């Protein structure tokens, strides 16, 4: 499955979709498939302030635990509450209903260093 072209991707498989000063964060379908069945997503509390590059959550699957790292800093505006009861949404639709959190940021610059969809797909293909 090709990655959507409307967002940026980190080498550690998070995606970042910008809407004004709001950035929605999730993990790629490739990462969700690699983790296999996701059983729990540990997310920060709404209102918390986080730094760019920080480890802000953990994703638990039957097979492994993976860290969630944010490329942008700012304030957590919203987390995907549905994941508390249905973490499998991340496996089913990592790019849409499996989104994880929204960050209000004043600095979008870190996203420029991330990959676009084409470069990210190539990154996954060589893994």
């Amino acid at each position: 499955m090709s990655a959507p072209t409307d967002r940026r991707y980190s080498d550690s498989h998070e995606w970042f979709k910008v809407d004004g000063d709001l950035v929605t964060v999730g993990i790629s379908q490739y990462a969700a498939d690699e983790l296999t069945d996701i059983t729990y997503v540990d997310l920060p509390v709404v209102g918390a302030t986080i730094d760019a590059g920080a480890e802000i959550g953990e994703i638990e699957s039957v097979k492994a635990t993976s860290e969630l790292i944010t490329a942008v800093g700012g304030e957590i505006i919203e987390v995907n509450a549905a994941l508390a009861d249905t973490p499998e949404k991340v496996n089913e639709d990592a790019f849409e209903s499996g989104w994880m959190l929204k960050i209000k940021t004043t600095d979008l610059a870190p996203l420029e260093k991330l990959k676009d969809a084409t470069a990210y797909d190539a990154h996954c293909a060589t893994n």
Partner: protein
Amino acid sequence: MRRSPLYDYHLAAGAKMIDFGGWSMPLVYRGITEEHHHTRQKVSVFDVSHMGRYRLDGDDAEALLQKVCTREVGDTSVNQSKYTHICNERGGIIDDVIVGRHADHWTMVCNASNRETIGRWLTEHGAGHGVEISDETFDTAMLAIQGPGAVTHVETTFSVKLQPLKRFWFLDGEIMGMKYTIYRSGYTGEDGVEAVIPGGAVGLVLPMLMDPDAGDDALCKLAGLGARDTLRLEAAMPLYGHELSEDFDSLTAGQAWCVALDKEFIGAEPMRKVLAEGLRRKLVGFELDGRRIGRQGHPILKEGRPVGEITSGTMSPTLQKSIAMGYLDIDLTEPGAEVSIDLGRKLNAAKVVPLPFYKRPNA
């Protein structure tokens, strides 16, 4: 990377492959949880051709097995197999294996990652005696057919009678000139069989078990090593490299039932000492509060003090609880004892629970 004779079949079935003990094997086809539930409810087929398969011929084969196996194997009947450990001189577990007595030879099934070690160990201790050791791993394939409907499904598909077989007994037979062995055993906590068949025949045998036209409603489906791991963990069956290793003896690993201290075998003396002095640690089960999972290597703490280590853990698909196994200081191993698991960034409360986590109905 070694490949099972079914490698192409797995890829065509949409398997995600992983490296397991030097073999490229299917981790998952549709979803680990779905494959897990299907095995508990119906029938699943697992390709376990990566397991090591040895044949022992000669008059001294039994004596060699008595020497290397922790369990009494001399009283094994023809067509009976037994689970046993093989230990080093210190009592550390080299592998856990299944030995079977056939009419004129013995077989041993071992873990993929230990196949070469076991081959060397048998050769070394059989040297100078009348025993011939052959590695049949690459000439054969092995399927595990598991689930409440497994035995009936195999009986109907291949016109064999398996119901009279007791657990761990097996049947040697021949179909269209191909020799096979069907064991009533498995690693899922369900009833089922494990079949060893010629590598050249498995590509014909496996499709006979499947019904592709039935789609989602099929009785028998493929399952990968991911589900095999969650199934065996619920059934509290130890896994080499996790619960079992050279760091632990069979008694500490909670497997005293497969240790015969009234016979001589390699590792018996240190285990008698362990028994005399009392266990310092023991393998136990844990239930974690919440939905986080304890993983191999996570420290177990009691009031901040290290008291053990997790060996395996998962979110149990059947029980919907976070379960784990691990070694724990002996004074804390009573069910109900409260501990903390250090998950890295957080401590998680857990309590000791009796094993197994899951037992099949009527078992």
